[in-house]
């Protein structure tokens, strides 16, 4: 029965990784990456690596989404300005 939780976590990570690739819009991908980070943290916990799980939670839940969303915002604003400038 202890193996069942490992299988669940592994399958969740596999599905989340696939979804992160399939969602092509960066903002939506960032949302999937946040859930992938949480799923990875669960997997690391069931593989008895709480240190690694903490590391993944610290990075994956807030830091990576913030970095990606700030880049998305900058790029979007840049292209919006670029269009205005050429018109």
């Amino acid at each position: 029965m202890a193996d069942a939780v490992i299988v669940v976590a592994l399958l969740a990570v596999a599905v989340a990784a696939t979804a992160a690739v399939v969602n092509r819009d960066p903002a939506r991908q960032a949302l999937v990456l946040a859930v992938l980070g949480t799923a990875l943290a669960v997997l690391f916990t069931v593989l008895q690596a709480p240190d690694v799980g903490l590391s993944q939670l610290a990075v994956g839940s807030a830091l990576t989404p913030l970095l990606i969303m700030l880049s998305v915002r900058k790029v979007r604003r840049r292209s919006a300005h670029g269009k205005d400038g050429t018109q």
Partner: protein
Amino acid sequence: MTPRVRLWLVCLGGGGLAALLVAACLRLPAFGGLWHPYGDRAVRTSLARHTANTVASVNFDQRAFDTMGEMTILFGAVLGCVVLLRQARDEHRDPPEPCEVVPPVRRYALIVLPVALVTGLYVIAHGQLSPGGGFQGGVVAATSLHLMYLGADYAALERIRPVEAYEVTDALSASAYLLLGLAGVLTGTAFLANTLLPYGTFNTLSSGGTVPLLNAAIGVEVACAVVVLLARFLDQAVEIEEAKGEMSAP
């Protein structure tokens, strides 16, 4: 190369790689096996040096030189970001308008900010005892400061976060790690050897010799590095405008 040809190439290469990977997976030692020679040795050494968290012992004692390499990558990556995201000559700073946030969100941010900061410090301080350590706690502490941006606005964050101080502290804590290593050489053993301090009582904050000190140095370094990194991204995303955009900006 057209996208179509490229897709075929990717499928071909990916298929070959997949076949090789599956073949390799089938020959790997079965998952959950009982034979871990390095792990057993690491656990023995860690217990001999009174470090309760074996992972911290591996990071900051048995493979401390490796961690120095990781720290250098971290430092270099942050330096690269600072250089890449600096304000260019054709850009100017445009202070953002103050932003409206509903009161519950602001209250939440103001309450959780110190709680998250203290939790981050707890994770750093107990790195050699319970799960955690400088890498994890540093990120938590740095993230907590950015609640000011989420709960108020960028100007409020800038008031509690002087970036220059964090840049200096980043460099200082990185050098502190090196100096602790050199102290080992000066006392007659080896670089980063854990012989400087007594090993202390098992499972207390002062146990493990130099492990808590190296751990704290990494914690401060990671926290400052993340703050500096996010400061550059926030500057670019929120404040820095391009000269071309001036005409369209109100």
